[in-house]
Every structure is written in C-alpha cells, then in structure tokens.
C-alpha cells in the first residue's frame, strides 16, 4: 500500500471511532485536530487500525506517534493490507 491508499482506508475508521463522519485526516493531522481524541479513544483507534490493516503496533509505537503520517508510515513498513 502507498500513503494515499492507507489514508483512504483510514478515514472511515477515524469517522467510526470518533463518531464524526466529517473527519478527513491527512499525514499532518495530530490528536489536537480531532475532537475527542483522548486516551480511551486512542486505544479504540489503535485496536481498529490493527484489525483493519492486519498489523500489530508495539506499546512504544502506540504511545509515541506524533501525527497520522507516522501511523501511516508504520502501517506501510509492517506490510499493512
């Protein structure tokens, strides 16, 4: 997958996790840009992304992502599909 494929597949996941169909993320999106992106929502997001892309993040990764672009890079590096 390339970055645009991952982002395209990510958007409905974000919309579902944050219950907001208007969310459109970009590589530059950070937690502060998304209303409700707290620690519990972060857990739901990580779990949903792992299942959707058939990848597994480490605990260190999951707590250190600084923006959506870093998540996308990790998914691509792990062979997400």
């Amino acid at each position, binding site marked *: 997958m390339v970055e645009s494929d991952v982002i395209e597949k990510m958007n409905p996941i974000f919309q579902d996790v944050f219950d907001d169909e208007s969310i459109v993320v970009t590589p530059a999106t950070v937690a502060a840009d998304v209303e409700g992106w707290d620690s519990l929502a972060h*857990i*739901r997001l990580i779990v949903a992304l*792992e299942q959707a892309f058939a990848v597994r993040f*480490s605990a260190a990764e999951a707590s250190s992502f600084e923006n959506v672009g870093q998540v996308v890079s990790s998914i691509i590096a792990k062979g997400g599909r």
Partner: protein
Amino acid sequence: MPLEGIGTSSPDSAGAVDCQSFGLEFTVSEADQQAFALLSGDYNPLHLDARFAEARGLSGAVVYGAMIVAKISQIVGMHLPGPSGIWSALKIDFRQPLYVGETAHVQIDTSHYSEATRTLSLKIAVTCGERLIASGSALATLHSR
C-alpha cells in the same frame, strides 16, 4: 438467576489472558425482573406483565436488554479478561426478544488482542436455542500492577 459458565483456554494466542472464549447460561426470573425494575426505575409492563406483553403480540414478558448486558458484564469482569480488565466499548444489537423463564447462552470469543494497548476485542453472541437474541462486540483493556 442460575448461572453456568464454561471457558476455553489458549494462553499462547492471547498472551496476557488465560482464556480465549467463555460462555455461560442464564435464566431470568420474574423476581430478577422486579429487582431490575426497582434498580433502574424502568417499570415498562412489557417486561413485567406477561398478559400485557401477550396482548401486544409478544410471547410473554420480555427480559430487559440491560439484564442481558449484565451477563456480558459478568463474563468480562470475572472471566474474560477477568478482574484485571475493564471494558471501554460495547456495541450490541438486540435481534429477538428473550422471554422471562427462558434459558439463554452468552458466548464471548476473543477476536483480536492488541499488545500495544493491552486490549482485547471481543465478539458477543446471545442465543436461546436456535434463536439469536443479541450480537455485538466489546473492547476490554487489561490493567496490571
């Protein structure tokens, strides 16, 4: 509310939990319904008065949906993942009514374990014989010392 639980273990595949699946049977009595009505303040006669419910096309008093959720809570809190876990999400669809006095089976299976967040994704099915009463999913996160 008599209970019977059965778990299956597979420690290698889930890692941090002892049990991958857990099921239990339960039967909700009229006394259980009355107790829940008192607790919740929901005195809807569809749940408490079989004649009232039957006059409206049902086959008897309908078990409160929250009573079914309570049995799911029992499994999550006591068995899968158990006392170190707490749930952070629940989605449930009620498909068909469960009637007071019927015995139902709640089955919860682990569909995914996220090591990064120490969170289990759980699939839930509640059946009564061949009838699917409810289905859904939940997330439960492990908290250890």
